[in-house]
């Protein structure tokens, strides 16, 4: 191997290590999170950036992302009016705004949630939370999540006491400002802990004000007995950005997590779900809709671990792919030995609108128990001819019928989101993208 080739393969990791050194010396790092930073970078050294044949990254090419040298994004001024436009009207008094991962008190308003809603900096978290984060790193297999831990310094902890119930949703708005000169990266971290029988509704939205940034988020949910989270993630980053987000959920006895995702894609958008149904009666719903055009890419990596009996999980993903868009889903449900009477469903539907659209799907089941009901399936298709004919026999033109069928394909999923503001926003972003294409 020539010297230059060696340099090339080593370069991406070296850039991260150097950035980390700068981060620790530069004063951004918090002493109380130092152990997590250290464990994170050690994990990164072990995992390294994925090579082409890495099983976890078969469907996504991370070379461009790994090969880009990023600076850590710093606090930058943002246009307040624009920020306000990104706040959902129903969350005016229940919104927390983060710019490049850092909480912005002047742009946030959590007054509508009352005193029981507590959000603090992760650096002030108790030992249980910190230990959980350290424990997670021991078997962390997602290199980007390891990088997040290596750089975590202004994460947020939302700690919901037992029995607290929040009727209206809280919005967490993550804004990336990018940088005019060099590509910038931020590592938002969120930990949400719900005490017994608590209930929380939450919308997490990612948006950018300029191109050329990498937002690398990790969201951890610890949901205690009988508690429930209704969660919707909106990914509307700039098309010329990279987005990685890991959602890790631990469900205890009879706990619930209803997660939905609407994604508009980017150069690379990767959602990593690690869901553990740890105790009896836990329930998980996970769904995602994406509309991809131009060269947009979205990858969903899903691992659902059924670790106890009598748990239910279901997944529904719908992707509309036009132009040279790429969608991929690698989803596995693992039913542990002893997790009897598990019910699990998984369905992935793809609608292809162009000859160059690309879709990879790998639904997978690993079952080690002998009394379970599990289904999985994938469809990849074009517009349904029977539906098209039906609409035409009612006098709708071909163009109108096709556009109606395309939008209805994803809107049937978007409509199930329990927050009308989000439904309207996603209809606006995702469906307009299609309309613009076919106008």
């Amino acid at each position, binding site marked *: 191997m020539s010297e230059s080739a060696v340099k090339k393969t080593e370069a991406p990791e070296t850039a991260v290590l150097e950035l980390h050194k700068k981060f620790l010396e530069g004063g951004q790092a918090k002493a109380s999170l130092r152990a997590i930073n250290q464990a994170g970078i050690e994990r990164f050294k072990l995992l390294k950036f994925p090579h082409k044949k890495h099983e976890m990254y078969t469907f996504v090419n991370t070379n461009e992302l790994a090969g880009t040298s990023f600076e850590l994004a710093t606090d930058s001024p943002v246009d307040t009016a624009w920020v306000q436009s990104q706040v959902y009207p129903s969350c005016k008094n229940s919104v927390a705004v983060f710019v490049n991962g850092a909480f912005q008190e002047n742009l946030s308003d959590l007054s509508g949630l009352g005193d029981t809603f507590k959000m603090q900096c992760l650096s002030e978290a108790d030992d249980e939370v910190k230990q959980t984060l350290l424990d997670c790193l021991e078997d962390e297999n997602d290199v980007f999540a390891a990088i997040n831990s290596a750089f975590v310094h202004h994460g947020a902890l939302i700690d919901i006491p037992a029995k607290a119930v929040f009727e209206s949703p809280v919005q967490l708005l993550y804004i990336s400002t990018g940088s005019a000169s060099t590509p910038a990266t931020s590592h938002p971290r969120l930990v949400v802990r719900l005490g017994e029988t608590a209930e929380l509704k939450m919308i997490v939205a990612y948006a950018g004000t300029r191109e050329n940034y990498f937002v690398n988020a990790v969201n951890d949910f610890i949901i205690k007995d009988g508690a429930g989270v209704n969660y919707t993630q909106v990914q509307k980053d700039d098309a010329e950005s990279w987005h990685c987000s890991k959602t890790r959920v631990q469900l205890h006895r009879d706990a619930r997590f209803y997660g939905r995702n609407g994604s508009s894609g980017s150069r690379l958008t990767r959602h990593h779900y690690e869901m553990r149904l740890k105790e009896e009666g836990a329930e998980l719903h996970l769904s995602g809709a994406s509309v991809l055009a131009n060269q947009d890419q979205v990858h969903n990596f899903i691992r659902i671990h059924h670790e106890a009996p009598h748990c239910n999980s279901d997944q529904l993903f719908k992707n509309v792919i036009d132009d040279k868009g790429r969608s991929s889903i690698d989803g596995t449900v693992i039913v542990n030995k002893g997790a009897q009477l598990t019910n699990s469903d998984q369905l992935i539907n793809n609608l292809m609108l162009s000859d160059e659209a690309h879709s990879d799907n790998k639904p997978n089941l690993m079952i080690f128990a002998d009394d379970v009901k599990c289904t999985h399936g994938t469809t990849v298709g074009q517009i349904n001819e029977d539906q098209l004919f039906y609409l035409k*026999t*009612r006098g709708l033109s*071909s163009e*109108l019928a096709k556009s109606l069928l395309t939008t209805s*394909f994803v*809107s049937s999923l978007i409509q199930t989101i329990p927050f009308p503001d989000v439904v309207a926003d996603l209809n606006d972003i995702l469906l307009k993208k299609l309309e613009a294409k076919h106008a």
Partner: protein
Amino acid sequence: MSLLEIKDLHAGFDTTEIVKGVTLTINAGEVHAIMGPNGSGKSTLSKVLAGHPSYEVTQGSITYNGQNLLEMDAEERALAGVFLGFQYPVEIPGVNNAEFLRMAYNAKLVKQGKDEVDPLDFDEILDEKMKMVGMDKKYKDRFLNEGFSGGEKKKNEILQMAVLDPKLTILDETDSGLDIDALKEVAQGVNKLTSENNALIMITHYQRLLNYIEPQFVHVFSGGKIVKSGGKELAHELEAQGYDWVTAPAK
């Protein structure tokens, strides 16, 4: 001029000929029933009339209102007043039923050179039509046919017929899968919509629908052809004796 004139029609799917020489004339104000055993080509005839792209006409002609129907696309036929009530109405999740009906209604208005109606005005029209066909208002906000029972799907077809007010309606096995109560309701809806100015073709396997919608003409379909035509009494004979006595000579 007759509303519909089918002359020596041959049509099929891929290379298989299914309709093998049908000649039939229908005038405004008439109700025709086409009966026949399963697989005789009745449904193919309905799809050819509606303009399904998968079926190919190899011989013969269809003239509708003086125009060559075979040269028209499915949506042109619909806008010209041809309506097919589907045997199996298609479910379209994500498309709101009321919005879909308004789109169809507006497409027709635009074709007639009129202004479109807005959702509020259409809502009034829709309420009236739903009352006419005995359909619960809750189906307005449901996704098109998704999760509807068999009876509600067929009622929704009749609702579309009521909204679009076609000149020529073909009901393909509208009675199949319906219990007697649903059948009566659907038939009542259809009866309110038939008039001197429009025509109806009912395609059915059973005689019981004809107890509620009375045809003036009954045609027996077998082997892709009409093998016997008569008045409504023919339907009773078919019910009593089965299809064998009419279809046997054709084989």
